[in-house]
Every structure is written in structure tokens, then in C-alpha cells.
């Protein structure tokens, strides 16, 4: 992911800024810090815990009653931008397994001076990162986090799975859904048409000091809500090769799924 030269630049800039900080009136250098992140998940404000998977029912904006069984997602390129527009990012990534509680804490490999920064991250991988080859992600999720080449290759951004109650059958039936977010692709064209559907999440300005932890909240209900009301009867599965569905997912994701807590 990215390259070492970028990290060197970050380190160099950090060092320069650190020494610049030494020229303050009181000659007290600003501390170097590595802020951490934690990831929490809720349905319109109600926390989602392990025990809720496959048991707690939720109602989405369109009215379907559903349960969740899996929630894994990838975030990358956490970036700190200071008031002067200088950006700091290690360019690393974190794959969260919400149900299993894996990687719910993450500290990017970047050191910055304490201060106020705009904090942002990328949901999924942008095209540059998605072109990389990462043995850990090739192995992740039992080796099935990869996206087949016929769907454009790269990696999943998110796997949100569960079942919804189909009330249109007699008797009513549970139907699995697989809300899998990847790069939008259309392999009916030659060459395959690809569109980067990762998006940047802006967490706003954050005062960062020693021991700062930033909570990133995911409101799962928002994936089905805004700006597109998601109809699971029509869009429950086979979404990976569905170019338009990937666009809708991306727009819903950018529409307010993520927010900063604490």
C-alpha cells in the first residue's frame, strides 16, 4: 500500500514541523502523537453487539424486517490535515469484522504533532490502492475478501449480510441478502467498465493530543436509507456485478453512514 517514500515524506514533514514547533514563544515543543481509532456499529442509534446478529430484528427504511449475520468492511487512508493544508497519512488500512469484534481498534502508522486537524478516511480502497496485491487481504475472511477478476478484481469494500422477511410469499419466508460493496463494474463491455465507488468520509476537525481516540460510528440503517431507499425485494443479492447497485451503495454510504462519536 502506497510506498515507503510517502511515509518518509510524512516523517520528514513531521520532523520539520516538530522543529518548527520548537520556535514557539515558550520554546516548548509540541508533542508527537499517534491518535487511535475505534469502530462502533448501531442501527439508528441502538448499538449492535455480537448477540444481536441473527437474533435482533430491524426494519429498514423501505419497511423490510431483517436480521444481520455479517458485517465486515475495509477502511483506508486515514488522513490528518492541518489548518495550513498539510496532510499526513500512513496510507494503511484496517479490515473490521464487527460481528467477531476483530480490528475494532486501529492506530494508523503515522506520527503527528498535537493540534487540530481535519480527519478523514476512505471507505474501501480507491483505485490506486485496489490495484495492489496484499497477502493479508488475500488471506482475510478465509481468503474470500478478494474480488474475482471477472468483476474487476481488487477487494471487497464491505460485506453486509443477513436475511429479510419476504411477506409476499405464502407462507412468509426468510430470504438471504448479501449487500456486498465493491468497485462498480460492468463486464458486458470490452474492456470491462470500472468506476471507483470508494468514498471519502470527512469526520470534521478534531483536537488531537496525547491519547486521543476517535470513535468512528457506522449507522447500518443508513445503508438502506439515504439518499436511496433500498428495496431488498429488488436488491437483495447478485449485487457485485450490478453496476448501478454499486453506485447506489456508494451514494448511500457517503450519505451519512459514518459519523464521529465521542
Amino acid at each position, binding site marked *: 500500500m502506497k510506498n515507503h517514500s510517502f511515509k518518509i515524506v510524512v516523517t520528514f514533514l513531521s520532523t520539520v514541523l516538530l522543529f518548527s514547533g520548537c520556535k514557539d514563544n515558550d520554546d516548548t515543543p509540541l508533542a508527537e502523537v499517534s491518535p487511535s481509532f475505534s469502530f462502533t456499529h448501531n442501527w439508528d442509534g441502538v448499538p449492535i453487539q455480537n448477540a444481536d446478529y441473527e437474533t435482533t430484528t430491524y426494519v429498514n427504511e423501505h419497511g423490510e424486517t431483517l436480521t444481520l449475520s455479517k458485517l465486515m468492511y475495509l477502511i483506508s487512508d486515514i488522513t490528518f490535515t492541518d489548518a495550513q493544508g498539510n496532510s499526513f497519512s500512513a496510507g494503511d488500512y484496517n479490515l473490521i469484522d464487527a460481528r467477531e469484534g476483530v480490528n475494532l481498534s486501529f492506530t494508523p502508522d503515522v506520527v503527528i504533532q498535537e493540534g487540530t486537524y481535519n480527519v478523514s478516511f476512505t471507505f474501501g480502497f480507491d483505485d490506486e490502492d485496489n490495484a495492489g*496485491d496484499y497477502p493479508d487481504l488475500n488471506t482475510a475472511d478465509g*481468503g474470500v475478501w478478494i474480488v474475482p477478476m471477472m468483476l474487476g478484481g481488487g477487494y471487497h469494500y464491505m460485506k453486509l449480510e443477513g436475511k429479510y422477511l419476504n411477506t409476499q410469499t405464502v407462507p412468509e419466508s426468510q430470504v438471504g441478502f448479501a449487500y456486498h460493496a465493491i468497485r462498480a463494474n460492468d463486464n458486458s463491455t470490452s474492456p470491462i467498465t470500472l468506476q471507483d465507488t470508494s468514498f471519502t468520509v470527512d469526520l470534521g476537525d478534531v483536537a488531537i493530543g496525547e491519547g486521543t481516540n476517535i470513535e468512528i460510528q457506522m449507522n447500518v440503517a443508513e445503508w438502506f436509507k439515504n439518499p436511496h431507499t433500498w428495496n431488498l425485494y429488488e436488491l437483495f443479492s447478485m449485487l457485485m456485478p450490478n453496476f448501478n447497485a454499486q453506485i447506489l451503495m456508494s451514494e448511500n454510504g457517503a450519505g451519512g453512514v459514518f459519523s464521529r462519536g465521542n
Partner: protein
Amino acid sequence: MLKNGIYGILILVAAACMGDDTQTYTATPAELDIPPFFESSILPPEIPRDNPLTVEGIALGKALFYDPILSANNTQSCASCHLQSGSFSDPNQFSVGIDGSIGTRNSMPLFNLAWNRRGPFFWDGRAATLEDQIFEPITNPIEMANTWSNAVAALQNSGTYPDLFDAAFGSTTIDSVKVSKAIAQFVRTLISGNSKFDRYLNGVEDLSPAEERGMNIFLDETRGDCFHCHGNPMNPLWTDNRFHNNGLDEFFTDRGLGAVTGDPRDDGLFRTPSLRNLAFTAPYMHDGRFNTLDEVIDHYSNGLVYSETVSPLLKKIAEGGVQLSSEEKADLKAFLLSLSDPSFTTDSEYQPN
């Protein structure tokens, strides 16, 4: 690739932590023979720090694997139910124990288990590690039906094993932990990576048109959609090593993972088997209910049954499955068979000395 230097450090650390009788531990570090594509595409195996691979340990493990001395009446070895010709599985639906007892699950094949990095093992995940897995059959009353004290005594009183254990572990004193460690070392060397599809990936062999069409069906979410559990060409394991309910039954006589965890959400879930070596691993499924690969494909095409814990990935369960045409089924089968590796089932390295 695991390096000699790393092994050397681990062995030195292990030796430093062992008792007086192991201070002369001089086993020779060994490396797994990892196919290049495995090395470049996925994370390396995690070898337990307390059981590094050694030449002597692997040799001992192989001797034990093939020796009926571990069973109560000296009639069965590990290889009795894990035949190399069957990719180290059993062609019988259920394996037969030393007294004629019949098991309830099909013997899992043994290959590439070194990459089941975090475990667990068995169809139901009841063993956390490979070493733990090896502990069980020896004392299982419907398998080798022995006691560890008997098994260890038999080994200790044999003319050859004390020296083999001394070479592997630096002590002639035998115990159950060393037995399981040695067999685990041997099992970790069972690596299958020379199928026709592997050679295709390496650019030395072409797929047939049917195999290529079958691969596209396998990877197509609107048709086979097999890849969400069995992986894709970038992952040579062809399993996610996770647990799923794949729509076999409406009600469970075997709770699988659920019986281990006690969590009803895990009822009817079993570990995904690898699709490698399907040409040799019939019958299929945890209970060996399908005798042929055609039956397996028919199951996913139109035989799925709903139950509460069924995987959401089985999207067309209301229709019974993905409804492949007969031509698509034939192509998918051709692709699946391209993942079989005949050289693995005849490799003399894995045969008894």
C-alpha cells in the same frame, strides 16, 4: 518462506525452556516445501512456536501416522481412515473403528492444513489446533479406542520409538503431547499445489474451453457463485476454512459447530472443505451423503433446503438453488476437477518408509 534461521532461534528458545533431559536437543530444522504461488499470494503458515518443524520430528510423525501401534488392538493407524490415494480421506461414507463401530461423519482429507492458520479443525471445529485434532482419534471409542497410557506404553516398550523420539525431541521419554506434535509436523508437510489449474496459473498449461467456462460459472455471482465460500484463483486453498450451513437439511440430526459452541446460531454449520482434489475425496459433505460430484452440483443447483441458520449467500434457496443448465453443470464439474492434483496422491514423500 520459513527460514532456517528462524527455526534455529525458535529451537534454541525452546531448548532453553525445556527440562534437563532435553538440553541435548539437536533436531534438524526443516522447511515446508511451499509452492511459489502460495508464497506470493497468501500469508505463510503459522507454525506453533512450541512445535517447530524438524527433519526428525516429521520422520517420526510419518512413522506414527502409518503405525497401527496407536490403536487399542494394533489394527488401525491414522492412515486407515486417511488414505493417500483418497487425498488422505476415506472412500467410505463413514469410517469403521477397530471394533466395527461406524462413525457419523466422513473423514476429512488432509492437505494444506498448515494454512488453516488460526484453526479450528474437524468438520465441527472442536479442535483449536492441529495438535489438538490429533489427540482425539486415538482415544475415540469408535475409532482407535485406545487410552493414552496404553498407546504411550506400547511406544515406550517398542524397539524403535524411544530412539526416534530422542532424535525428534531430545528425550527417550514418550508422552501424548510429543506424539501429537510429531504427527502434526508430518501432516503440515502434506501440501497439494500441483493441479492442472495451478499449472494454468503458472502459465505452463492451458485450461480446456469447458474448464474455462466452468471457472466463469464458479466466479459468476449470478450463476454458480461458488467463490464466496470456496475462494478464487488468487487463493490457492479453495476454502475459506469457515463454517456455513449449506442448505442440506431442514432439521439437524447433527448440530455441527452448534454442538461445540452451544450457540444455536451455529446449528447445522460445518467447515467448508477445500475444492482441491475432489477427484479423490468422494463421498462429499460432512456426512458423505453425496457419492458423486454431479450430486453435489445438483444440490447447489436445485436441492437446497431452507433452515433457520442457512447461509444468506445461498440466494436462490426459494427456488432450490442456482438452477444451472446441464451444460453449465458439466462445465463447472470440468473446472472443479482441474483443481485436483494427482501428484499429491502418489507422492512417495508421504508414503511409509
